[in-house]
């Protein structure tokens, strides 16, 4: 029975990871930018959910919509006016730029929100569902469903909408996309905006599950890296598969080897994948 419980734990955790990583993967895959602010955007989304719940009683899954719109705008502006300026430069520059920006956001968050851990407690609490001796926490279940819906929505946008197809076109062949009249800087800004919106929306859902604090961002960022490589860059279904794989590896790893090895295992897996299958489970070779 404990086996089933751990399987369930792993799958639920994995979909949270998928939700953390989807936007990160999009930005990395399309723009070739490793956005070190991703974790901070997640935390900002969580603070937004907390603020809206405490002030007007809005449940986190509704705050999600607010976060998505607001952070799309923020992401769009950051890309348009800052990152686009170094997008053609070696990868090192864009990475350093996002590192510097993240230092600023981190310090500002510390200043505004203080360093204390907060948490979003719904009243009444959501509790958990029991199937025999197997339990599933409802908040994680909700986060899981929304996470999957969100990634599905992203997938549909990329496949079906004009903008989405332009994003995919830029990812696959920038030169050809430009010849076809795609406004590349604008597409970059939109893609980054979507990535940021995904991060903040994920944050609103995670507010139910994890304590909220400025420093929490690094743990989320670390997971995003791993999931992204496992799933394949820029691939939305890949992010889901990568997240699930990481969730299962961590939970079963902790069970078999002891919890202190869960983190080690995930980074070991990351290196293994990079060496053996750098394109990830589903992805194609990305940028060099």
């Amino acid at each position, binding site marked *: 029975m404990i086996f089933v419980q751990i399987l369930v734990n792993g799958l639920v955790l994995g979909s949270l990871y998928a939700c953390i990583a989807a936007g990160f993967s999009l930005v990395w895959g399309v723009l070739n930018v490793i956005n070190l602010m991703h974790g901070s955007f997640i935390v900002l989304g969580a603070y937004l959910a907390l603020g809206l719940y405490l002030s007007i009683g809005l449940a986190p899954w509704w705050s999600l919509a607010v976060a998505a719109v607001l952070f799309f705008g923020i992401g769009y502006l950051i890309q348009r006016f800052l990152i686009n*300026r170094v997008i053609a430069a070696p990868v*090192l520059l864009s990475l*350093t730029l996002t590192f*510097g920006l993240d230092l*600023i956001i981190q310090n500002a968050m510390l200043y505004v929100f203080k360093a204390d851990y907060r948490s979003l407690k719904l009243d009444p609490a959501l509790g958990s569902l029991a199937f025999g001796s197997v339990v599933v926490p409802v908040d994680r279940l909700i986060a899981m469903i929304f996470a999957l819906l969100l990634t599905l929505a992203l997938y549909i946008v990329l496949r079906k909408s004009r903008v989405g197809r332009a994003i995919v076109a830029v990812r696959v062949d920038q030169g050809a996309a430009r010849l076809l009249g795609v406004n590349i800087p604008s597409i970059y800004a939109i893609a980054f905006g979507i990535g940021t919106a995904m991060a903040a929306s994920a944050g609103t859902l995670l507010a139910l599950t994890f304590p909220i604090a400025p420093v929490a961002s690094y743990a989320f960022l670390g997971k995003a890296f791993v999931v992204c490589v496992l799933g394949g860059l820029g691939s939305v279904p890949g992010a889901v598969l990568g997240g699930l794989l990481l969730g299962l590896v961590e939970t079963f790893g902790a069970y078999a080897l002891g919890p202190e090895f869960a983190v080690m295992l995930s980074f070991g897996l990351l290196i293994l994948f990079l060496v053996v299958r750098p394109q990830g489970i589903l992805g194609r070779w990305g940028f060099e």
Partner: protein
Amino acid sequence: MSKYIILGVVLVGLAAAPLTGDTYLMRMATLACMYAVMAASWNLIGGLTGYPSFGTAAFFGLGAYTSGILATLGVALPVSIAAAGVVAFVVAAIIGFILLRLKGHYFAIATLACVELLREIANSATDLTGGGMGLNIPRNADLGIFAEASLFFFAMWGLLALTAVVCLVVERSKIGFALSCIRQAEGAAEMIGINSTLYKTLAFALSGVFVAMAGGVYASWVHYIEPGDVFDILLTIKPVVMALIGGVGSSVGAIVGAIVYIAAEEVIWRNYLDFSSGIIGLTVVGLVLFLPHGLGSLHLRLRGKAVTP
């Protein structure tokens, strides 16, 4: 001004620190030497060869623990530091051989993961490293404040001088030429008969050696290390920013960049109690956007020439 003159002036200027008798100044100078070693080492792989390594902290921690563990077993400081260098060379060669087939961000992430992995190993190998309890490195006999500060300053300074010489020799040699070729067009380099795997691996291994030795000196300097302190991601990122300040590709630039960074950080840190990291962030952003080729391109900026990233 030729880079040799700049390097000479920097090294002599640093060596003047003990003349002041100010031990805090000497601590800063020791730190500057330490970071200069790391920035110049990073430049070998990240600048010269064009592989954006984020593994610096991995070798720093590896060196700190190698020499720290040896010191607790009673091995003398010079021997334990040399051992740290040797261990790092071997480990870096193995890691490099495996990971250097990756490029760009893939390589960056893989090396970053090495830092995390080594930190977790240090955390778990409690019998050897003390794990989360940390590792105490015995103090050498009580030397007195100034003598101890001088000892570690000159150890770090000597290491910097050695690193600088090796980097300059590599830059000028056939290896340096091969590495430049690899950076510009690896496929073409292979075609003209350059064994790129060999040279890349060599560059990566060399970039680990001096960083590990600096870690070794650091461990006996502070007497106490923890996995989180010596496998700190900041130890990976700062040298990259320093090399950017100096202008990527030049080891002398990286050394100057390290000194400028440490000096600026200290001034900001002293003057802004709880917004220091934000201001450092602003500085980094400004640098990337306006001086992407480092301080060396400042004169171009000032003359109103376009500096494109």
